[in-house]
């Protein structure tokens, strides 16, 4: 089996994306952060560095909660998506 990109992996899953993000970042805190554990611990790579700035997209979130535990700067305001929204696993 050949390796897959994250985009290919996430495309396998079913999502009902809410218009309202369920995770919010404190941009100022993130700007000052030099460790960025979020880049490694997010299994859907929602956090990316673009030209030295952290960008975040919630749409592919697998709702595991790794970011809220790994971020020790308190920069992540985390909740579950509203009822009925987010990922739906067919196998699990």
């Amino acid at each position: 089996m050949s390796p897959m990109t994250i985009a290919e992996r996430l495309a396998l899953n079913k999502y009902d994306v809410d218009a309202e993000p369920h995770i919010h970042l404190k941009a100022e805190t993130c700007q000052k952060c030099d460790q960025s554990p979020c880049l490694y611990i997010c299994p859907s790579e929602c956090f990316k560095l673009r030209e030295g700035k952290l960008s975040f997209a919630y749409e592919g979130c697998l709702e595991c909660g790794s970011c809220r535990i790994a971020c020790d700067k308190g920069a992540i305001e985390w909740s579950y998506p509203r009822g009925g929204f987010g990922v739906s696993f067919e196998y699990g």
Partner: protein
Amino acid sequence: MDETFDAIVVGAGPAGCAAAYRLAREGLQVLVVERGKFAGSKNVTGGVLYGPVMGNLIPNFWAEAPVERRISHHVITLLSEKSSLSIDYNAGDSERHNGFSILRSKFDRWFARKVEEAGGIIATGLRADDLLWQDGRVAGIVAGGDNIAGSVVIAADGVNSLLAEKAGLGVKLSPDNVNQGVKEVIKLPRETIEERFNLSGDNGTAIHFLGFCTQGVHGGGFLYTNKETISLGVVVQLKALVEHNVKGVELLEGFKAHPAVRELVKGGTTVEYSAHLVPAGGLKMVPRLYTDGLLVVGDAAALVVATGRALEGINFALESGMAAAETVKRAKGKNDFTKQTLSVYEQLLAQSFVLQDLRTFQKSAQFLENMRLYSVYPELACRLAERIFDVDGKPKKKAWQIIREEMKGKVSIWQMIRDAMSAKGAT
């Protein structure tokens, strides 16, 4: 909703469904609130469902539940970078229904239907946003803009239990006591799975991997055969991912490409990619289990035991859900839902395997911090096998001499004895 429920259960996983099923069977008014589109849609397992506990709740459940395969083969595989060494236990034709591979999206949906059949109400697509407080005690939940009143709330909202946090029960999640599982479900024809794993009928294999599957960092790998799919994943401590600047998915790709795994999943098609956290800190991370009007069950209470052999959580979820139901039944009899009455819950858990196992294995989490378990020992085991099985036409050495040669520079004999002693105390 104007009525007051006897119990509001938040989360339709094994813990929540076990509690709700038992309460509904006792004739109590129970509401289960599930944020997913259907029960099971947010749930993922990296484990085997061991049968006896579920069987206590629903006898012969496997005859009707959507279980995948009856686990007849248990394999432990140690991986070096290129090679592997396995211990393969085959239960043969034993009729015992001990362990099953399951897919949670299917299993939990079935379980929630059983709750409904028993008289419970399952409200899906509804997120519990907050606890409802009255006179300093939990009196229900706030969900979808409504206040829903309940004599007691059972928080079965999983490892990220926002309700247990809101109730101030001392939730202790941190990168060193939480593991991240990343998983693929891989589709293969039924016959291919049975031939490849030497299985007859609905028998199945569970393989646990240690060593190069996590490239030497704290964690392990798993493979379970389902009917027409394979569940494959790695489970790694969050702290290890951060410290080694490595991603779970990279480890999963490396694991999948390892010669010992590559041939097992060859020709398969990945049909799902998921991730989930597992509380792995053992007894010391368990929060307070109850307060006035609230009980916490399953992963929400970190009731998972790391034995050093595997992480076991579903049975702890089921048993704690049943204990919570028994507690609520007694509280209802006295019409008293204060923490004094709800303290029965902790007593019931202390009498069952839940707190006893957590106590027995309370040194495991610390033992599993030993990095030699993930690098030196699996590597050493594979090297010894290679040296013993390779015939090179030169005079042979005795096994002990080979062991000493291979240990050189990697681990001292004293270190190994110390590790063996701590393994004795922990696993």
